[in-house]
């Protein structure tokens, strides 16, 4: 009960913010929330000690779906597009998951990377999809409603906020479940989990599909917001960035990824404005600082603050 009310409240606050935020912040908020979904998926994996260095694959699949589907079928409905992007990414994760769920640690990370690089290699060489330049994404409609250009971002923001609350709510519920709580347990002792009658591979597979689908949703929304897709979305540096934001956020809550993602996007826009030559130094430096001095990520600060407030 309380959980459902909390979700409605979160949705109301997020949607309400759409009328307050200035235009530039609106765009930033859309991208932050959408990329936060990708990071949320990585958090689901990270809790079990798994890191995917190839989330760009699912992110890119979601994005390219939104780019291609209108061209092939004429569908421009945002709900359908994002749902299809999510489903395709989830399906690919499901298929690859049969192989990937056998791996752990660095091997898992590297194999994820390999699959992402395969798609990257294909996209770069496919001239029909614009090779390295990518292509333009058409404007979307919402259940038959086509917003004017001036208000497009505002509508997309509301849409994004709702998608984020629904998905984060589902993930939050999942994390309370038996499989969702099999995190440190799998990290600690897989053999024991198996001898309790529970399939570790199936648990990892489930987590991987969730992460893939969330990345697909994030990519689909980002493609809609930017109005463009290109192979860089699949590139390993993009995947690395998502991993960075995961570490920055911390895995303590389903809210953490969205805080981390927002901080990261803010940091990026200010850095590009005032210190464009130092962007990677800033990213690298803060990644080092978080790993060394703030192992629980930004969320550990929130948790500490809440603990001291009581």
């Amino acid at each position: 009960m309380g959980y459902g009310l909390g979700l409605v409240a979160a949705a109301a606050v997020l949607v309400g913010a759409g009328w307050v935020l200035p235009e530039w912040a609106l765009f930033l908020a859309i991208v932050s929330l959408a990329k936060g979904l990708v990071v949320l998926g990585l958090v689901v994996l990270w809790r079990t000690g798994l890191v995917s260095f190839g989330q760009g694959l699912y992110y890119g699949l979601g994005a390219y779906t939104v780019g291609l589907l209108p061209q092939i079928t004429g569908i421009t409905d945002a709900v359908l597009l994002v749902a299809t992007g999510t489903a395709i990414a989830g399906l690919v994760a499901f298929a690859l998951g049969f192989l990937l769920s056998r791996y752990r640690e660095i091997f898992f990370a590297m194999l994820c990377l390999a699959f992402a690089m395969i798609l990257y290699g294909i996209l770069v060489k496919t001239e029909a999809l614009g090779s390295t330049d990518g292509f333009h994404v058409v404007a979307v409609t919402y259940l038959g409603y086509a917003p004017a250009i001036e208000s497009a971002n505002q509508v997309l923001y509301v849409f994004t906020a709702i998608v984020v609350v629904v998905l984060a709510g589902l993930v939050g519920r999942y994390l309370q479940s038996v499989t969702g709580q099999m995190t440190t347990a799998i990290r600690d002792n897989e053999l024991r989990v198996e001898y309790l009658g529970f399939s570790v591979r199936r648990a990892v597979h489930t987590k991987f599909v969730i992460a893939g689908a969330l990345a697909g949703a994030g990519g689909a929304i980002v493609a809609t917001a930017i109005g463009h897709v290109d192979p860089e979305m699949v590139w390993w540096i993009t995947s690395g960035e998502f991993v960075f934001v995961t570490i920055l956020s911390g895995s303590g809550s389903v809210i953490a990824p969205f805080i981390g993602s927002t901080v990261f996007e803010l940091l990026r826009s200010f850095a590009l404005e005032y210190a464009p030559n130092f962007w990677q130094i800033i990213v690298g430096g803060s990644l080092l600082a978080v790993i060394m001095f703030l192992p629980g990520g930004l969320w550990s600060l929130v948790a500490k603050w809440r603990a001291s407030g009581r």
Partner: protein
Amino acid sequence: MLTAFAILVDGLVFASWLFIVALGLTLIFGVMKILNVAHGSFYAFGAYVAANAIGVYYEAGLPPLGGFALMAGAALVVGVVLGTALERGLLRFMYGRDEVLTALVTFAVFLMMEDVIILVWGADPFFAYQPYGLLGVTEAGPLVLSNYDLSLIGLAFTLCAVTWWVLNRTRQGRLLIAVIHDRELAAAFGINVTRMFTLTFVIGAMLGALGGAVTAPMISVTPGIGVEVIVLAFAIVVIGGMGSIWGAVIGAVVVGVSRAAAVHLLPQVELFVIYAVMALVLAFRPEGLFSRAQARKI
């Protein structure tokens, strides 16, 4: 027939280049269990320092063959300076922590180095083509092969032989093998593991920088060259079995020849064939071609 020969030669040249780049990476992983993303930075720094030095050197009109010594020198300097700084300054605080986190630390360093390169050398390309032309060409029927490219095969063989000799015929090498097999046991027997780690890391860094240095005359040295290389090197190391030096040899040959085949037969798939091979190998040999399955006592 001719195509087959061309694929073989191109494949071997590419494999040699890959091996030179990947050797340091696999050495560091084997001994220290660190997946060093910053290996790409060592490579890039090696290329830049070498290109710079070569440029100045030939401008001064000094004896042309000295350029090769310069490349080796660049690798040495970059390896010692950057390798020591990274291992002593950062990585030693990560020993005993999660391997994936350590990999992320090196990823952070790699990102920072990318900017440092632009700050130091700017965004314009550097050229150091002189040593490349110096060695001339070999004509094999209708094929014209660069002797510089062919000499990479020689260099790869030499590195291979030296590594084998060090590991099997010297005291330090045997100690290193002991550390690879069982770190704790090695420490218990009085091997100075800390010193071993620093030494390994510096040598690995030198090899990475050497890879960059020998590549500098073949390419235009621009920002971002490390990004391409590091993922390739990963593929080699993963295919061969992480930490296995002989695995790296096989991995390099497999990737080198498959890429050369793709270039000659089906250029569209050139980029992804490498990763497809990697995924394929892993699907059948989960821990790479040269791995030992470990049973667990319960």
